[in-house]
């Protein structure tokens, strides 16, 4: 069957002309911050890579606490190219979350969240939370000392929230403490629950971006003179960036395969000088700023409440930044965006160095 006959077969049954005309209409403005338009697509590509490598690993990983650690050792030592897929999944996750943070902070600083794109920001925030939980749940599946201690701290911290903390803690842990039940639960989150939510929210997020079109920074709105078609110009540029990212992830995975830590022992004390993954370091450092007791109240609880309020404010920025919604320059929220970005970077570096 020739290409022409195949094309005609589909054309007789489906009207592709409308899709073709829609794709030709999509244009992307050209300006000095245009590089930020590629961060979302890059994040999507890296998450697709995670889905693929994760599916491959799921064929061999055993989500039961007695055998989880051993199954990882078997994947790495006995399976052909097992070490590579595990390394690719590990480094893919790190770089995907890095790309995600660049995308989030880039969007915040150019105020792409402003009217009419508030819901895009909200769906993006939900995707950020899902991705962080992807990282935590995936990390725990190693069932090593470090991951065990990290999950104990993270779920314990969530348990300090007033009113709902106890419920969240027992829901995440599957009980009072972190046990084999927690592993099974986190596996269900990681391979079932979170992927379903991710697909839904990415679909909604992408659909809304197509509906509203590409945002332009307020200061450049009147200066845009050139637009380039998304198909095929911007798409080809997207492919180039994805190829470079793929090359980098593969190279890092080959040169720096991650070690396998000691198997977790629920009865043992946590290892000394333990630190969480880099994307939790800013939270970890923030907790360390607060003393154990503040005027008779639990210092950790106060810290978690303040952090939660900071995160809630972050979510509500599009609804609070009224000036940007009217298309006016908003210096206050520019500084708020810079403060959030700088705080994240500085606290992450401090956490890494201490």
């Amino acid at each position, binding site marked *: 069957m020739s290409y022409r006959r195949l094309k005609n077969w589909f054309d007789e049954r489906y009207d592709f002309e409308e899709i073709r005309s829609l794709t030709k209409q999509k244009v992307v403005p050209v300006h000095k911050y245009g590089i930020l338009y590629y961060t979302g697509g890059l994040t999507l590509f890296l998450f697709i890579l995670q889905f693929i490598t994760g599916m491959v690993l799921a064929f061999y990983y055993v989500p039961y606490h007695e055998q989880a650690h051993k199954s990882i050792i078997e994947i*790495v*030592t006995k399976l052909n190219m097992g*070490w590579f897929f595990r390394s690719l999944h590990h480094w893919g996750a790190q770089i995907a979350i890095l790309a995600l943070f660049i995308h989030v902070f880039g969007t915040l600083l150019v105020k792409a969240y402003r009217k009419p794109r508030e819901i895009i920001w909200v769906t993006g925030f939900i995707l950020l939370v899902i991705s962080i939980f992807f990282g935590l749940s995936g990390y725990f599946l190693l069932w090593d000392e470090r991951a065990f201690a990290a999950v104990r701290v993270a779920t314990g911290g969530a348990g300090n929230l007033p009113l709902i903390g106890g419920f969240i803690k027992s829901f995440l842990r599957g009980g009072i403490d972190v046990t084999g039940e927690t592993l099974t639960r986190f596996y269900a989150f990681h391979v079932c629950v979170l992927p379903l939510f991710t697909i839904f929210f990415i679909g909604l997020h992408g659909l809304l971006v197509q509906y509203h079109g590409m945002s332009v920074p307020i200061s450049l709105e009147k200066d845009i003179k050139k637009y380039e078609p998304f198909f095929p110009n911007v798409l080809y540029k997207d492919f180039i960036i994805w190829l470079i990212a793929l090359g980098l992830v593969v190279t890092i995975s080959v040169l720096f395969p991650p070690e396998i830590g000691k198997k977790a022992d629920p009865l043992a004390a946590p290892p000394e000088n333990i630190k969480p993954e880099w994307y939790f370091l800013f939270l970890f450092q923030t907790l360390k700023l607060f003393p154990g007791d503040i005027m008779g109240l639990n210092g950790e609880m106060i810290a978690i409440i303040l952090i939660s309020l900071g995160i809630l404010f972050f979510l509500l920025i599009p609804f609070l930044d009224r000036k940007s919604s009217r298309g006016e320059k908003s210096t206050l929220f520019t500084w708020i965006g810079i403060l959030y970005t700088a705080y994240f970077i500085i606290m992450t570096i401090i956490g890494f160095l201490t």
Partner: protein
Amino acid sequence: MFTAKIFNKWIRYIIFSLPLLFFNTIILWADEKIEVFPSTPYDKFIIYQVLIIFWLGIIGLIVILKMKLKEIERIQSMGIDKEEKDIPFLD
């Protein structure tokens, strides 16, 4: 006296070498480091060779995409990619 001196010398050697023996054998109880990368020189060679070929492939694809992009931009700048609305059709 001479025998006592030799005996003392050997006792000292034994006493000082015991900790060394102890520390050398204690390593046997340490956790084995799990190899996360193929250890044979042949496997390493193949892996690095494939990595180089992979990068050549990536660079080749990027070059092709850049060439296609340049051609598309050239056509778009001439304006011949836009369809004319009133173009007559041959019956």
